[in-house]
């Protein structure tokens, strides 16, 4: 899986940069709060939401448990309907297949429907290397592409940009890709959308090849489904002669009827609407390019693994494959809201990205080893997930893997990984803590020492402790340890009781002084 960018800093570093950016934080706060409130209302409309959620989870779990069977059934259905199915074990293989298919048409440009899978494999870059221009047609993706930027949200990839920034990007960059932005373009969203409409329409009307992903694939019928709002999806799925869809193998569902669940839960979780504006469902080439008499005359489906079967092999982590990419978890996450999507260093940002990316890519890189820590474990992501992925559970599971190492599956092979770098200090500290806690005397002596040195407390720990204080303030040291405070309190209580017995007396404020523990002399080192 590509998508880690060269020199990408680990999450804590990237997040520290991001939270300093006040414009970014304001853009994010506005957007995430707007959509999370709307979503809550849309979900509250359905009294059977919990049952839909349970059904969606069950469909996905059932499909994953029999994934081989359903993929074979899907292949047969798509082929029977006039499509061609290709299988790609990894990103390189998928990119090679798509590039060859495009080159075979003799075309040098393709229009694209927003797709997470093609971002994950770096398809645009691969096509560019082969001399093929790939035009993103979703407005937000266009903003990202023209801005030489990276997406930062699953649903609204340009969520980190405000209207002024978008205006500047359009004015500066549109001319280099095709129709330039109108003279004197303002920053009204209406005007900006109009500029995008004009810029992209000339591409839609001449495009011969389109590349898409899909939200769902139906094994029983071979039907693919794309949810969208703008109509760019319909343009790409209708007008070109060749359609190539790159879809992760986990997107299959068994029956056409199963769509009734996700057609209700995905729009409400994602855009907070009762239904997204446009949904297209197509089955191969249709009855002889048939009933409707239009649409592409060639359809290719590329089934993508790229780490998904490795994820499937992990009993705890496999639930991430239920994800339907609604992005509700991003919008409720306090960490995402402040750090933004770029900090996650993967095409899947937010809570789902924090569990999906380290599983698809492995925890070998610095960024992937830090992603399981990009969370407060508050559980809000689990609450809103329409397929009930227990993200906190998987985060903890992955943290354990990062720190302890252990058995994982990489490229289909069972291997045992070593603990990630940077966690040796943490393990050493935990071992030391265990020794200390087993020896109360030593702990007591240490605590007292710390209390005396409290004014010398540094803001960040030196040496191996540094990583820990990278993302945390070192706590204030109390004047007394809890045990000393408790002993003092008990002693004061006893003295008070004695005085009261003897008659009323002026109560002096308790003078707090670390009590000398009686048994200290006998303490073991």
């Amino acid at each position: 899986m590509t998508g880690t960018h060269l020199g990408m800093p680990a999450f804590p570093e990237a997040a520290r940069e991001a939270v300093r950016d006040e414009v970014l934080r304001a853009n994010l706060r506005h957007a995430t709060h707007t959509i999370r409130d709307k979503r809550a209302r849309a979900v509250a409309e359905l009294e059977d939401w919990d049952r839909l959620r349970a059904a969606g989870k069950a469909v996905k779990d059932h499909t994953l448990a029999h994934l081989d069977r359903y993929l074979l059934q899907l292949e047969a259905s798509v082929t029977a309907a006039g499509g061609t199915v290709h299988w790609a074990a990894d990103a390189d293989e998928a990119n090679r297949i798509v590039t060859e298919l495009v080159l075979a048409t003799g075309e040098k440009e393709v229009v694209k429907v927003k797709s997470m899978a093609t971002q994950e494999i770096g398809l645009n870059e691969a096509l560019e290397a082969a001399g093929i221009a790939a035009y993103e047609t979703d407005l937000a993706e266009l903003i990202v592409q023209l801005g030489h930027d990276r997406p930062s949200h699953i649903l609204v990839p340009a969520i980190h940009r405000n209207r002024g920034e978008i205006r500047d990007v359009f004015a500066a960059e549109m001319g280099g890709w095709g129709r330039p932005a109108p003279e004197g373009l303002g920053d009204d969203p209406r005007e900006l959308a109009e500029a995008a409409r004009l810029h992209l329409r000339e591409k839609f009307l001449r495009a011969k090849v389109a590349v898409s992903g899909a939200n769902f694939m139906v094994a029983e019928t071979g039907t693919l489904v794309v949810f969208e709002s703008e109509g760019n999806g319909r343009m790409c799925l209708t007008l070109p002669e060749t359609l190539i869809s790159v879809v992760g193998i986990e997107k299959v569902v068994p029956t056409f009827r199963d769509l009734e669940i996700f057609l209700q839960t995905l729009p409400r979780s994602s855009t907070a609407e009762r239904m997204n504006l446009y949904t297209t469902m197509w089955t191969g080439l249709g009855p002889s390019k048939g009933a409707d008499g239009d649409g592409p005359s060639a359809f290719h489906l590329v089934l993508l693994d790229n780490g998904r079967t490795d994820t499937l092999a992990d009993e705890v982590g496999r639930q991430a494959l239920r994800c339907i990419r609604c992005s509700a978890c991003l919008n409720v996450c306090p960490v995402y809201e402040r750090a933004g999507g770029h900090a996650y260093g993967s095409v899947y940002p937010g809570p789902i990205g924090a569990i999906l990316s380290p599983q698809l890519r492995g925890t070998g890189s610095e960024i992937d080893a830090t992603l399981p820590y990009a969370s407060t474990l508050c559980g809000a992501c689990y609450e809103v997930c329409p397929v009930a992925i227990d993200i906190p559970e998987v985060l903890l599971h992955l943290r354990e893997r990062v720190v302890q190492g252990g058995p994982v599956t990489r490229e289909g092979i069972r291997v045992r990984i070593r603990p990630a770098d940077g966690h040796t200090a943490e393990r050493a500290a935990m071992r030391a803590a265990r020794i200390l806690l087993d020896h109360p005397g030593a702990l007591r002596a240490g605590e007292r020492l710390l209390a005396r040195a409290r004014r010398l407390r540094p803001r960040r720990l030196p040496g191996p402790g540094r990583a820990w204080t990278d993302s945390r303030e070192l706590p204030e040291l109390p004047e007394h340890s809890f045990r000393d405070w408790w002993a003092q309190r008990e002693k004061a209580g006893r003295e008070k009781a004695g005085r009261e017995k003897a008659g009323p007396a002026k109560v002096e404020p308790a003078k707090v002084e670390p009590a000398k523990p009686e048994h200290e002399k006998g303490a073991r080192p």
Partner: protein
Amino acid sequence: MSAKEQILARIRRALPEPRPDTGIPRDYLAVHGARTPAETVDLLAANLTEYRAKVHRVDEDGIAVLLRRLLAERGSESVLVPPGLPPSWTAAVDATLIHDRADSTAHQLDAVDSVVTGCALAIAETGTLVLDGGPEQGRRRITLIPDHHICVVRVPGQVVDSVPRALPLLDPTRTLTWISGPSATSDIELDRVEGVHGPRTLEVVLLGAQ
């Protein structure tokens, strides 16, 4: 080993046999709430309106006049009609009727002002029109490229309550287009803007005894 064999082998290694076949709980509702057919049509109208479609109600006698007025108000000079559209609907229209032909190019369609179609069915709870390429609807591209789409829904006959009621009536081998309002985007600061690439104006005519 081919990629296909490789992927299937990985799946089988990841999932040890036997794999119990747990059922899917389908205790979710088929319809949300109880409504009379008239109330279902009202709900469709309300939900379409909320997503900025313009909704009109008319009976068989009035549709020709209504369509003429809607096209004239917009100043449409040309209007696309699918092959099976009842001629009586467009009998009074002043604009030039353009019949969709297989050889008309996307650029030619781009020069047309409006399109009038029927639909396969409409879903009240979500405010959705479903087109399946039938004779009253024509090819997908004719409802996509022009900027103004008038869609006629026969009420109450073509209206269903909910998504679970709609799917069994649809044929998955046909290409299906679900439309819930005019094209819109929320990609700029989540401000909703109507009309990006699809029709910027969607008018829905609810046709039936009033």
